[in-house]
């Protein structure tokens, strides 16, 4: 023991302890780190606790969905779009369907359009709830997660009622909806949406004025507007920095122009501002759902296009023509006029774009998906450079990315 006490400290260690010779350390975060929400790997170069350089490594979830599109008929390919983003399947369904419908020149009946709006807004709520819960858990607020998943469960039940599926719904089809809206949907949606604003108040009570929450998020993860636009960031991140742009307002699709809602913006551009924007978006989405519920038009849920939309079972069994159409659509699909379309919608994460290129056959020649997470993640190195390692978790959590959407 006395030996240990008298042993002089070796010279090299002494230098390190005084910090005279800073050494950088490379740290791997992920791909299995819980706070990277999927399989994102960040290679961090650290100087003490400060990030000198960050290099994201993606592609762990690359599934070749864009290749798969090329061997599916247009209608079959709808099921692939669900799998791109597991938190916003209906947003991806919608964007793909709108793109193909634009190529076909189809007119979608009001009932289908309004149902689409209602369900994509519920999808936004679903996605924001998962984001809020997991983001809070990352930062250390455990209980918010339980509240958020309670409401998310209700939304998934609504999806199940509509389509028979909780997550991979594939409910929007080219030409309208897959099925007639189920009996009793009004009651189910009304019960949920009437209670929802009160639930948002609950989350806000837990977080908005919470000193620890503010301490961990305010002033963290700031990026300038120029950087974000240049790097391809979209969605709530831009709105939290003050850009009032939302595809639902600026390039309205599927009757969004008939709904009354606000685009929330903040100017601070930090993690806290992103939180505030998304909370406000939830309130606005609830407003849209309510309007859709109250003003739901009646009529058919599919377009009047027998060469694209499958006939009703009853007609198929009794009318020759319907039987022929049914046979043609099921066996070979429908032909889409040659051309190309880039359709953009506002998903919970930002700008989703589907570039669909048709060569006039029944299979898409090329489908490119512009996932918002891909563009957003590209900005991670810029966002975390020079910040503390503890803030990396808060910063990347505030981006709300889904790796499936990024890697496709």
């Amino acid at each position, binding site marked *: 023991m006395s030996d240990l006490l008298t042993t002089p400290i070796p010279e090299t260690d002494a230098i390190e302890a005084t910090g005279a010779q800073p050494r950088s350390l490379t740290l791997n975060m992920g791909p299995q780190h819980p706070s990277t929400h999927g399989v994102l790997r960040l290679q961090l170069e650290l100087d003490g606790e400060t990030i000198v350089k960050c290099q994201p490594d*993606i*592609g762990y979830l*690359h599934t*070749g969905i*864009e*290749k*798969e599109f*090329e*061997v599916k008929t247009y209608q079959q390919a709808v099921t692939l779009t669900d799998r791109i983003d597991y938190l916003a399947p209906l947003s991806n369904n919608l964007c793909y369907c709108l793109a193909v419908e*634009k*190529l076909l020149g189809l007119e979608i009946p009001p009932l289908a359009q309004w149902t689409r709006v209602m369900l994509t807004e519920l999808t936004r709520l679903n996605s924001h709830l998962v984001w809020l819960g997991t983001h809070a858990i990352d930062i250390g607020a455990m209980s918010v997660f339980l509240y958020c998943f309670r409401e998310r469960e209700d939304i998934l039940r609504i999806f199940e009622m509509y389509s028979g599926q909780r997550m991979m719904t594939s409910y929007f089809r080219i030409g309208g909806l897959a099925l007639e809206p189920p009996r009793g949907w009004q009651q189910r949606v009304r019960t949920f949406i009437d209670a929802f604003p009160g639930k948002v108040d609950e989350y806000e009570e837990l977080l908005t004025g919470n000193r620890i929450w503010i301490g961990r998020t305010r002033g963290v993860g700031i990026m300038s507007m120029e950087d974000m*636009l*240049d*790097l*391809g960031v979209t969605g709530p991140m831009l709105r939290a920095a003050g*850009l009032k*742009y939302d595809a639902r307002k*600026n*390039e309205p699709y599927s009757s969004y122009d008939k709904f009354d809602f606000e685009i929330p913006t903040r100017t601070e551009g930090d993690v806290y501002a992103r939180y505030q924007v998304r909370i406000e978006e939830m309130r606005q989405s609830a407003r849209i759902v309510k309007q859709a519920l109250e003003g739901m038009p009646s009529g058919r849920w599919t377009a009047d296009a027998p060469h694209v939309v499958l006939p009703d079972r009853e007609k198929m069994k009794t009318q020759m023509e319907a039987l022929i159409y049914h046979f043609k659509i099921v066996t070979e699909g429908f032909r889409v006029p040659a*051309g*190309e*379309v*880039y359709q*953009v919608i506002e998903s919970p994460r930002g*700008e989703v*774009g589907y*570039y669909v*290129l048709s060569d006039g056959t029944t299979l898409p*020649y*090329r489908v*490119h998906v*512009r996932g918002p997470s*891909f*563009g957003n*993640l*590209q900005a991670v190195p810029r966002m975390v450079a020079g910040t503390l390692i503890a803030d990396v978790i808060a910063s990347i959590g505030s981006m709300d990315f889904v790796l499936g959407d990024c*890697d496709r």
Partner: protein
Amino acid sequence: MLPENLKENATATALEAFDGTAVVSGKFDRDELTIEIAPEKIVSVCGFLKYDLRFVRLSTVTGVDWYPAEPRFEVVYHLHSLDRNERLRLKCRLPGAVPEIDSVTEVWRGANWFERETFDLFGVRFRNHPDLRRIMLPDDWEGHPLRKDYSITGDRV
């Protein structure tokens, strides 16, 4: 050369006035403007579009393979102007033997990953790209999966 129906289009005519030799063709179809650019002019055209015509956002870059036709590859750029809420699609056609084009990362830094993805999946090389590596697939992967001559099922062992 621009077709007749694009003579009224402000963006198309401004682009032609900027550099007539850069514009190969154009079309306006389903409310979307597409302009084909000579590949060697892509960087100067994009610079003009970003700084003078305010297409501040590059939405995406991707490729199309027209195998076995020649020129085989198309690189497709989708641009977005927030001021005018206008979208524009640029295309460059590249030969199948040596598909190479200048990178637009000096105009939009965000082109970095999109070009890497196009390189990874189509094998189109971007000159002057700061970090041209595979992004989706492992570094030692052989072939470029989104090419039309790449089998979808894989080879039998």
